[in-house]
């Protein structure tokens, strides 16, 4: 067993520098690497490019990095729910590249799997396809999209073991598995770090080979963005 365990978030983020490109898992505030984000704020690295489906909210998630003006460029599919984001974007302080959600997931997956590029129908005929190669396959048009390159991927899982194997819970899985192994160094933070042998080898969502460092996150707020309930009958 190749041991990927590091003791804390500081060790996990060793080598992180300004001007780097990061991938961050999560959908909205669900399944985001809360501890890595806090540490990125503390480290004060800036001028970074972040690939993440969303940009958090004003005072949580990636919104914290926006607040501290650490982000040069965001690559996301949906960036509503964040006033500071809108302000920085409209003022030109922040560069934004919007990518269809399925394309974003697959550009990470392609990097993980060693595919340089792929053809997807998403965005054909829209401004997303401008300047990109398009091609007809069996009478339908597709856009050529390239794999992402990143220095670090920060993902959050529910459980993990010392070998770097990861297990997710519910929809907190989302982009996290797609980003593992898609960057030079993948850092996984987990709510529960167990010994090897405790996870069922049949039910590992991400094999440890895709993860370079794993640590137990000190605390998780797991903020709910849109609490929606129904009345008890």
């Amino acid at each position, binding site marked *: 067993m190749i041991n990927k365990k590091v003791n804390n978030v500081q060790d996990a983020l060793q080598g992180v520098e300004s001007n780097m490109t990061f991938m961050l898992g999560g959908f909205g505030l669900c399944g985001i690497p809360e501890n890595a984000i806090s540490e990125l704020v503390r480290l004060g690295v800036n001028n970074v490019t972040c690939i993440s489906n969303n940009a958090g909210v004003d005072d949580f998630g990636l919104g914290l990095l926006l607040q501290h003006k650490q982000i040069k460029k965001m690559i996301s599919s949906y960036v509503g729910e964040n006033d500071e984001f809108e302000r920085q974007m409209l003022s030109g302080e922040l560069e934004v590249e919007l990518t*269809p959600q399925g394309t974003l997931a697959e550009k990470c997956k392609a990097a993980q799997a060693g595919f340089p590029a792929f053809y*997807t129908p998403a965005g054909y005929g829209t401004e997303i396809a401008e300047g990109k190669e398009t091609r007809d396959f069996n009478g339908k048009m597709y856009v050529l999209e390239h794999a992402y390159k990143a220095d670090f991927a920060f993902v959050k899982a529910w459980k993990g073991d010392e070998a770097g194997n990861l297990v997710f819970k519910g*929809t907190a899985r989302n982009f996290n598995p797609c980003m593992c192994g898609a960057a030079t160094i993948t850092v996984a933070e987990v709510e529960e770090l167990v010994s090897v042998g405790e996870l069922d080898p049949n039910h590992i969502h991400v094999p440890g080979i895709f993860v370079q460092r794993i640590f137990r996150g000190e605390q998780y707020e797991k*903020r*709910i963005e849109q609490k929606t309930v129904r009345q008890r009958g």
Partner: protein
Amino acid sequence: MLDKNGIAKRIAKEVQDGYYVNLGIGIPTLVANFVRDDIEVEFQSENGVLGMGPFPFEGEEDADIINAGKQTITTLAGASFFDSATSFSMIRGQHVDLTILGAMEVAENGDIANWKIPGKMVKGMGGAMDLVASAENIIVAMMHTNKRGESKLLTACSLPLTGVGCVKKIVTNLAVMDVKDGAFHLLERAPGVTVEEIVAATAGTLIAEGEIPEMKL
């Protein structure tokens, strides 16, 4: 004239037994409330869940279980969770039978715009571009006109497109229409709405042949 729940109720009649359905944010989300309970349907949300159930009871919400609108949800027996790439395999691979989403504009050739107003609003396309580029069966749920009273059914979209020639059916507060052969084809009127009112509210080519029945809800 229909309200948002009325639009959702009418669209629910389009949902057939055995359908996997993706519901967009807004009016489409309401459709789930009106689907007949004698048919088998499963709702997919692109953030990674199949088999969505109703919202949780107060105190039972789980931050790790949400839908694409970031709302807390529950799941039904037979549900599954998966990653984003798998989710879009379901969508791109045309395993989802019906996609229902909102729009700012729809053109008579089936083009749709719903993600950006240049200089004003850019929230992003989320999963909409993947959905409209892949789905064989797309229904748009929207108001017939915008807040300024202007028609959202146009000859050509003025806003940046989300997808080209993809919308097959539209249900608005005023009417049900097919989109084909470069025109909107009026199928049903909302209760109390005349064909003339629909024509007046539609900027694109609207074809209304024969008697147009009032919709049954």
